[in-house]
């Protein structure tokens, strides 16, 4: 068992190096006194000043975060409902419904982007002049549409391993459906909800193509801003902004876990 621990720890180190080596380069270049990520030309902090002073960039990031939080929440609800539905009931056309619910994953981004642009242009014109954050609605609705499929797939897989004997026992003991749901099913699902939520959040925060087609002059998001700034070469300002964001995320994660105290509650301690 000891050896297994060691091997798995070593493997995590390997994965971490793979994931973080490029990020280390990114952080290093945020201090590089050159417009390009290519040659080292001396140390500078000026790109940090630039990134932190860039009101458009910060506004774009606030938009992205707002959209990501809203669409993660909605995707979790819709995706979980869909997964329960597919798991709970056996009905004609279930396989088709399950495949249909996974379709947003399969639609090429650009095609879905154009579809959304046409939809919000013709079928459901979205008021671009609406007050913030309502003007972000078209983008958030599009994000929910592709993100909830991911949640549904993950939660559906987790439900596959649910031990229904537990439910039967609970029912025999007189538990209501609601109590069975809250006290037996939900704890079982927590890891899938965490995983699905993380996926939905990541997808929304990073989406460029679909957002590009649904955003207007007043609804620029972080990826849209970044893509137009660096489509074919990273500017150090973006490196600096990314570094600040990474540091912030790290700090917030640490804080959240501290506040949570027993972090076990987040993921579930049984079996630890």
């Amino acid at each position, binding site marked *: 068992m000891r050896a297994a621990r060691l091997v*798995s*720890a070593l493997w*995590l180190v390997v*994965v971490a190096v793979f*994931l973080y080596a*490029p*990020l280390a*380069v990114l952080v290093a270049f945020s201090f590089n006194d050159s417009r390009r990520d290519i040659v080292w030309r001396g140390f500078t902090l000026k790109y940090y000043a630039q990134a932190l002073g860039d009101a458009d960039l910060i506004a774009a990031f606030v938009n992205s975060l707002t959209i990501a939080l809203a669409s993660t929440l909605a995707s979790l609800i*819709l995706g979980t409902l*869909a997964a329960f*539905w597919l*798991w*709970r*009931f*056996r*009905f004609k056309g279930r396989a*088709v419904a399950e495949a*249909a*619910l996974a*379709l*947003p*994953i*399969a*639609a*090429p*981004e*650009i*095609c*879905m982007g*154009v*579809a959304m642009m046409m*939809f919000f242009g013709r079928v459901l014109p979205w008021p671009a002049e609406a007050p913030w954050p309502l003007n972000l609605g078209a983008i958030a609705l599009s994000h929910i549409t592709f993100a909830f499929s991911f949640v549904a*797939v*993950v*939660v559906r*897989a*987790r*439900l*596959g*391993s*649910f031990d229904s004997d537990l439910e039967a026992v609970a029912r025999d003991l007189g538990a209501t459906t609601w109590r069975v749901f809250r006290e037996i099913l939900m704890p*079982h699902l927590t*890891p899938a909800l965490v995983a*699905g939520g*993380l996926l939905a959040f*990541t997808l929304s925060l*990073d989406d460029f193509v679909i957002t590009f087609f649904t955003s207007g002059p007043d609804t620029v998001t972080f990826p849209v801003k*970044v*893509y137009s700034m660096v*489509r074919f*070469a990273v500017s150090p300002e*973006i490196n600096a902004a*990314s570094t600040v964001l*990474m540091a912030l*995320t*790290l700090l917030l*994660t640490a804080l959240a876990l501290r506040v949570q105290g027993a*972090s076990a509650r987040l993921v579930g301690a049984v*079996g*630890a």
Partner: protein
Amino acid sequence: MSAAESFVAESPARRPRLFVALGLPPMAWLAVFFLVPMALPSALSFGQNVTLTRIAVTGSLANYAHTLQPLYLRILAKSLAIAAATTLVCVLAGFPTALAIAFAPARRKPWLLALIMLPFWTNLLVRTFALMAVLRPEGYLNKGLGVLWRLIRAPAAALGFAAPPFHPLALMNTDVAVLIGLVYVNLPFMVLPLYAALERMDRGLIEAAQDLGAPAPRVFARVILPLAMPGVASGVILTLIPALGSYLTPDLLGGPSSLMIANVIERQFHAADDWPFGAALSFVLILLTFVALAARGAMQSRRS
């Protein structure tokens, strides 16, 4: 679902209200915000441009006939191969990762999850450029390898092995670079579903198997793997399908022949300005995915 699924699904007739309450919101959402919007480009796929921006929907199948040319079928086959290779590497690399997280002490788990996810909250394009800085001929990987090579070359020469001088690995602008890039981008889409499936796996089962003297590989094959299968299946869906549709990674890391189907689709909507054909290509891709998923679902229903 899999053998691990002991739950028996019931008929909607027994709980009609629950059936509607669970099924209606997601299906209605899918219909209004996915099927209706997608119907617009799907109509275009049966049309032709009459002016630069006006497309007449004529019901013609010409665009679909065009997609069946060997030229586009070859690109589709190549994209499938690259996406499948990506998925395979992700399973092989993601399984031990998810296992290590799922079996880690509870208080470390959130940290390990954060460790995996943190890179993905940095913009995809920014990350891809950083990866290019690592992989290029004069990049950091080659610089590091060059230093290592020089270090071992001297002792090797002393022992009578004349090692050749270091040649930088030509990784950039090849299919291998595309594969590395796609694994880099898609790994969490494999790790998270796997983790969700493996987390809180019944340790009793594993310990019982070990107590009975089962060797570790056997425990893995007979106990862990079957329990993980639903997670593997969902991980494969979440990795294979998006990998099939990627265009930025092959664009930036690929070589002269690393064209993938999404690159072609992207050019139809942009440079070539051929929305009808781009839409037709998209719907061929969507249809293929749909058929594969529905067939898989039907097979599972039959099995259970």
